[in-house]
């Protein structure tokens, strides 16, 4: 083993400032941790909502929830899992690991990075405040089809909270994406060429581009919706000449790329985990990277496959069907390359590998049902039925969430410095694997037997009892699995084995520093010489993978309260906008206060930049 790896490690510096330091931190690692913790809490809340859904649907004509409550819960389950759990969990891992993997000291815009986090938290809070403000959570579904979202049909203020929360989350994601892209383009270590970047970094960059191009569409949509609901415009109201189909196009032009926004980082994680535990390089690096780019482009040409039932006509049906089927090609390439990575490897079955293998097995099922949905005639039968629910849970739970669990077991030792327990980890995997399949496989059958989505109950005479019961039992197994993860995490933090720098004998730069890494990440500048810098130094000979430049003085910006103050201003602004249409005497003062707070934060921010030229 090369000795220079050891030379990278500085003596541990005692962190100062206690919990207050988290409020003003601009360190990408602390921000990453805050992303992960916040998103995981929302993941648990979304999971509780899922359990309530499954309790209600466990038996026919159940009265556990009223229809009004059920509709709020399923709306918030979807919204939470998409915007507050999977996206920010991905963002958390990107925040923590993209700079480390490319040998950078921090993100390109550390203060803007903090702002992205605070806006995520505040966006989530705005949505969840709706529950305590008279129990009026959003109730029109996460897809929010107009005109059901309009004031005459969705009479509570829930959808206003939904729009305002989503606006904050949109700003958060946009800023975060710009940050990731600039970091990757500008801050790569010397020699870290694009074709040497870890695949997780590749997928993070593609995901960020997708967000930048997709988000404006939903931002326009929800802004118009907010005007309809609060200022008597009629963008989506048919009675006044508005068009509800306009909403569907705006929503899905965002919504379908959004699927890839959630799954591409998962592809990246799997592409990191599989080679390490197969002790081989990824098979066909270029194919895996470029197929991700291809998926990104094609992802913008398929949105109307969510709208076949609206009667698009044969031409549009044909085009969107062809484009959707085409996506199966680059996706298939990735799967074959992963399988080839394992082939003739020396497979080490640690928990991350369990989840990675489980990911491939489950994601393929979601892919197969996805191809069937791309055929408009079949789609006309199964769309809006439980078949679709089964399909996208195989993609987003069997896919994204499995990858995230794998990523957590793989990377948490780097973040916390302590290993997670392997026995609990494997128990965790099997519980989730069994529970997941028991919950979602029967839902394919339910869909084929004619059970529509989003129904709060069903009658005894439909023949759906058994599969619904199985599905509900499965949901509790998943919950138990998630609980094991929480227990494992707590035990690991308390008395987990020290991880050391490189517990998995890995290949990429994040393992070439201490666990957890120091504030400036690396004590020396890394000059990258290969695609697997750490591995090649260990196995091909000194300096084959990377060389070190010790004459290096990384510059990190000091802690700053400006991002938090500025974001708080936007948080208050959301409430000002909430009241602006209904009670202007309340709304206008709140908006003025909000602008004052935001302005104060911005001026501090600008002042700090003058002293320290980093955004």
């Amino acid at each position, binding site marked *: 083993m090369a000795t220079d790896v050891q030379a990278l490690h500085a003596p541990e510096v005692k962190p100062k400032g206690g919990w207050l330091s988290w409020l003003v931190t601009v360190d990408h690692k602390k921000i990453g941790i805050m992303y992960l913790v916040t998103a995981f809490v929302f993941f648990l809340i979304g999971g509780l909502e899922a359990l309530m859904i499954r309790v209600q649907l466990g038996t026919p004509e159940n009265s556990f929830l*009223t229809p*009004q409550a059920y*509709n709020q819960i399923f709306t918030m389950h979807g919204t939470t899992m998409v915007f507050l759990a999977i996206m920010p969990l991905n963002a958390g891992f990107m925040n923590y690991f993209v700079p480390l993997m490319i040998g950078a000291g921090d993100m390109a815009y550390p203060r803007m990075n903090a702002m992205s986090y605070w806006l995520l938290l505040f966006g989530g809070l705005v949505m969840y405040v709706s529950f305590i403000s008279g129990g009026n959570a959003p109730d*029109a579904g996460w897809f929010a*089809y107009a*005109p*059901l979202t309009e004031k005459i*049909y969705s009479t509570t203020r829930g959808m206003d909270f939904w729009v305002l929360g989503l606006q904050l989350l949109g700003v958060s994601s946009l800023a975060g994406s710009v940050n990731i892209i600039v970091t990757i383009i500008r801050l790569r270590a010397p020699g870290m060429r694009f074709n040497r970047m870890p695949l997780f970094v590749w997928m993070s960059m593609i995901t960020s581009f997708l967000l930048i191009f997709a988000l404006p569409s939903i931002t326009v949509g929800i802004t118009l919706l907010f005007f309809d609901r609060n200022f008597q415009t009629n963008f989506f109201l*048919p009675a006044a000449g508005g068009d*509800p189909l306009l909403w569907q196009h705006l929503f899905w032009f965002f919504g379908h790329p959004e699927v890839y926004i959630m799954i591409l980082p998962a592809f990246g994680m799997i592409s990191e985990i599989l080679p390490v535990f*197969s*002790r*081989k*390089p990824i*098979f066909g690096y*270029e*194919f895996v990277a470029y197929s991700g780019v291809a998926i990104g482009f094609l992802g913008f040409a398929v949105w109307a496959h969510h709208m076949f039932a609206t*009667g698009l006509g*044969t031409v549009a*049906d*044909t085009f969107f069907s062809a484009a959707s*089927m*085409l996506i*199966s*090609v680059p996706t298939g*390439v990735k*799967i074959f390359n992963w*399988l*080839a990575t*394992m*082939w*003739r*490897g*020396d*497979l080490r*079955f640690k928990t991350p590998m369990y989840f990675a*293998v489980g990911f*491939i*097995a489950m994601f393929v099922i979601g892919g*197969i049902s996805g*191809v*069937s949905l791309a*055929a408009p*005639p*079949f789609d*006309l*039968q199964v*769309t*809006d039925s439980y078949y679709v629910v089964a399909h996208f849970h195989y993609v987003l739970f069997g896919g994204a969430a499995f990858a995230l669990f794998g990523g957590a077991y793989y990377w948490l030792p780097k973040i916390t410095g302590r290993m997670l327990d392997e026995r609990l980890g494997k128990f965790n995997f099997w519980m989730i694997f069994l529970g997941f399949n028991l919950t979602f496989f029967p839902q394919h059958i339910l869909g*084929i*037997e*004619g*059970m*529509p*989505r989003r129904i709060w109950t069903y009658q005894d*005479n*439909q*023949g759906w*009892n058994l599969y619904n019961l199985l599905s509900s039992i499965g949901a509790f197994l998943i919950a138990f699995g998630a609980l094991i993860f929480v227990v494992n995490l707590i035990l690991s933090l308390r008395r987990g084995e020290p991880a050391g720098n490189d517990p998995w004998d890995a290949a990429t730069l994040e393992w070439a520093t201490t666990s957890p890494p120091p504030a400036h990440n690396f004590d020396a500048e890394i000059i990258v010489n290969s695609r697997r810098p750490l591995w090649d130094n260990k*196995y091909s000979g000194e300096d084959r993978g990377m060389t070190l430049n010790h004459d290096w003085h990384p510059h990190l910006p000091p802690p700053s309260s400006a991002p938090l103050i500025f974001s708080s201003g936007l948080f208050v602004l959301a409430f000002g906008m909430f009241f602006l249409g209904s009670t202007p005497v309340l709304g206008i003062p709140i908006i003025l206060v909000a602008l004052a707070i935001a302005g104060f934060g911005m001026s501090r921010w600008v002042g700090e930049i003058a002293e320290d030229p980093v955004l």
Partner: protein
Amino acid sequence: MPYRRPTKALGRIGLLLIAATMLVACGQATPQTMLDPQSDSTRTIFNLAVLLFWLGVGVFVIVQTWLIVSVFKYRHKYNDQLPAQIHGNTKVEIAWTIVPAIIAIFIFVLTFQAIQKIEVKPSVASADEVHIQVIGHQWWWEFRYPDITTADGKVLVTANEMWIPAGKVIDLTVTSADVIHDFWIPALSGKRDALPVHETKIWFKADDVPDGEPKVYWGQCAEYCGTEHAYMKMRVVAASPNDFQTWVTEQSGPAVNADLPADFTAAGCIGCHVIRGTDAANGGQIGPDLTHFGSRMTIAAGTLDNNRDNLHRWLDSPDAVKPGNIMTQVIKDDTLSPEQLNTLTDYLISLDPGIDAKEQAAK
């Protein structure tokens, strides 16, 4: 029965086996299943689905076998030699890019044919075609027969139960009175959204009824449309052309009991419901037309079987049967006195001109 290729038959047997297992597994009839197609369109879809199913099984078996073999064959075996560091193989990778592309093109061609088959309505003589307007409401279905005129010169309107002649082309125009709904009869037709601005079109041709008895199909709203999306169900009755003609004749007539109770007006029913041939002929049109209510199979959009007990229960407390439905805005639990309840129940049940499909529905 047209001739089918043996491979197709094999496919069908496979799916039927699965269907049978499903039936045995739950021991319950599944009236809304799509595995029992009863029209040309749904059969076309079903055949495409069989193909997609077996292709899917093929891909599933290949990938999972490859995965499982790898897992067992290359599991770490106590030797610390590094495996060969293979970085890829361009030829192999090009191959597994092209082969899925060919499969995708193959699926697409068959999909394209199916699109043409189910979306392009065949042109037939007007006598072999029936036009029906489907209008989604929160949370019930209105069916209008624009070519059928009633005794009082209006268009024939019914609710939650659509009668059609078997073997004829049914040409549907679908719209909505409020939010987006979705018309879906799994055995007869795929989904078509009911939009409030645009008319959408869908057509199908239900199979002939072999024994001459009317055949009942179940359907349900498939687009989330608010509080009672779950209880927005419907029935389609495919009748022999003769039975359909009888039904048309009977339904076009005025209500068979013109003796409208005063309570119908007093309790506010008239604000939302029409009963042709009575003093409620010009009632409100917010709720279903009740002219021949007694002939229908269900109450509250497929929620309850239509009989005296259920109707009594429904009128007594609409919110208990279908929580949050729009009738609850007028009829609360204590709105109707016991006498009013009995009078209205008796009257509505009496509105049955003769032919109905309640017996078939019970089967």
